[in-house]
């Protein structure tokens, strides 16, 4: 691990329309780290991932997010992606009529264009697809289909990690990647994520349950409740939550 800061979120407030959901988030992430963000339903976990990725549904009202020195919140969603931010969606979107191949080619070449590189040749592109598919054991058949259309729940999540492998982000946010996965799919997805980890990238794992953290070991665990990180600790905090549930946290916070 090094001491550079990859993502610095400071007093972030955001919401939908007039409803405030995030009420002052502070978070520091360094390269090589895995952070788990846990919390009861409705605490703001998906809002945080949406705001960081630039989902236009959410409005930031105050605070800042600095991503390797850049003002993240001022960037268009596609530029956040080019700069190395990846969101694995809780509900990957089906896009009928857009083939996986065309989708990935557009994504890869848009990033290359952003960095003033020539588009990949057809041969190099196919080679890249083949290599990255192997990481999550994604069937070649899925590549010729429309994006996520008719994919099973497990295939959709593996497809997310496949895209992550292709785009090689510096910061990956896995939003409830474990939801809807059977144990085999969970293992494949987690092993894909672990293969992609290195000292220069970081991962935020957003999850409701401890289960995924058995496979992707976090360095830090944060508990989000009512739009704030109310508790931070090491991996043992996740185990404690598994045993005791969230009620003790809620009581502590609500009684303050």
């Amino acid at each position, binding site marked *: 691990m090094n001491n550079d800061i990859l993502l610095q979120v400071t007093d972030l407030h955001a919401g939908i329309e007039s409803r405030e959901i995030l009420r002052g988030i502070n978070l520091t992430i360094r390269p090589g780290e895995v952070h788990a963000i846990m919390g009861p339903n409705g605490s703001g976990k998906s809002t945080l991932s949406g705001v960081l990725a630039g*989902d*236009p549904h959410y409005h930031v009202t105050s605070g800042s997010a600095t991503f390797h020195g850049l003002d993240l919140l001022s960037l268009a969603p*596609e530029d956040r992606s080019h700069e190395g931010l990846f969101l694995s*969606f809780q509900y*990957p979107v*089906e896009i009928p*009529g857009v083939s996986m191949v*065309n989708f990935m080619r*557009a994504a890869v070449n*848009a990033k290359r264009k952003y960095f003033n590189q020539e588009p990949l040749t057809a041969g190099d592109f196919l080679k890249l697809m083949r290599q990255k598919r192997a990481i999550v054991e994604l069937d070649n058949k899925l590549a010729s289909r429309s994006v996520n259309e008719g994919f099973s729940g497990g295939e959709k999540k593996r497809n997310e990690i496949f895209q992550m492998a292709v785009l090689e982000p510096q910061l990956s946010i896995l939003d409830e990647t474990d939801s809807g996965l059977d144990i085999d799919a969970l293992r494949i997805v987690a092993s894909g994520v672990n293969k992609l980890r290195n000292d220069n990238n970081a991962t935020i794992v957003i999850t409701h349950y401890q289960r995924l953290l058995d496979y992707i070991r976090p360095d830090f665990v944060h508990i989000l409740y009512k739009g704030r990180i109310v508790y931070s600790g090491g991996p043992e905090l996740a185990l404690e939550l598994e045993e005791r549930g969230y009620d003790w946290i809620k009581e502590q916070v609500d009684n303050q």
Partner: protein
Amino acid sequence: MSAINQYLDLYRQHAAVICRHAPAALNARREAAFRVLEALPRLPKVGDEGFEAVSLEDMFAPDYGINITRRQFDANPAELQGCDLPNAGTFAAMVVNDAFVADDKLAGRLPAGVEVMSLIHAAAKYPDAVAHSVAPEANPITALNSLLLQDGVYIRVARNVVVDKPIQILSTFNTSEPLLAARRIVVDMEPGAQATVLLCDHPRSRQADYLSCRVVEVRLAENAKLDFYDLEESTDRSRRASVFAAEQQAYSVLNTVGITLSTASTRNEFHVSHRGPGAETHLGGMVIAGGSEVVDNATFVEHSTPRCTSRQLFKYAMFDQSHGAFEGLVTVLPQAVFTDAQQTNRNLLASPTAKMNAMPQLIIDCDEVKASHGATTGQLDEAALFYMQQRGIPQAEARMMLINAFMDEVLQRINHEPVRERLRHLVDRRLRGCSAVCSNCSIDSLRKQ
């Protein structure tokens, strides 16, 4: 005063001149057409039943010139060489303004049993075929066309002949003065004949206002099969009123795909009736409109014989202040048992000021039928857009990919692969904001002069 009057006056004054330059089979229809128009208080306007976007009254109101003396305009059939579809090649002929123009070599290139000729020539060779029209004569567009028509295109494919290359008719305008051209294209498919016909509507000039008053007549004999593709890529000074009329005998198959990529104002009507059991009708349409373009497709499919199938799919992507309409009518008569009819209209409004009217209708007088219709109008899927942007695809590119994907279902109905790929390319170019005209089409290079 209605726009009709100027055409009635013109006919009253110049009937002899108009008739002198046209065959008897066409002249025989003029009096009846005159009476149809004379009986109308005016041409249909927006708000009249079945007219949700395009006003024929406004379209026909300007004083366009009409070339009743058959003045020859320069036309160079060599221009067609540049328009050959890559990897396919076509049997191509032109309609310049209102006249049929073919390369000398065309007749020699056509396979045995395939004829492409002027309607004047056809009237001498196939007088009965030209005299018998399948177009709805009480229709105002047909009546205006019948009143003024002096020439056209005749295509005939003989019994059991299968034509491998598309027969392409390229229609252009090249006058410096405004012009109304009455155009008619008649297609006769003998029993078991199979062919692909591709119409391309490109005015060569945008120096003047043009109006194409067009009738397409298609007769499909038993077991005949016709793929009919119609591309309109004109200018903001071109208007079109078109009637497509088809009569299908038993077990014939008609597949049409109409694509409007640019126009000032266009109304396309499709009138299809079945004359024998087991016929299949596939009507497809696509509209991409922007600026203040107005595009209207109206379908009239009449099931009057047993076990016929009809499938309609019309999709629109509307930008800026464009206005589109789809008026679809499927009628199932009591004797048309086991009819299977489907009508679908899907529309994307890509701007808050674009407008779409959809009027799907079914009239069913028979119990033993399957019939359905559906129309939806919506915006681009925001969730899909954000998903694509998160992966790094810029918003404009993502929007274009989604619109291309939306239209793909219509393009998939084009059976001839080189034509499909060519039209796919033109649709993509149109969405990228370029002129959609084929990059190697010499008509386009002339247009830009």
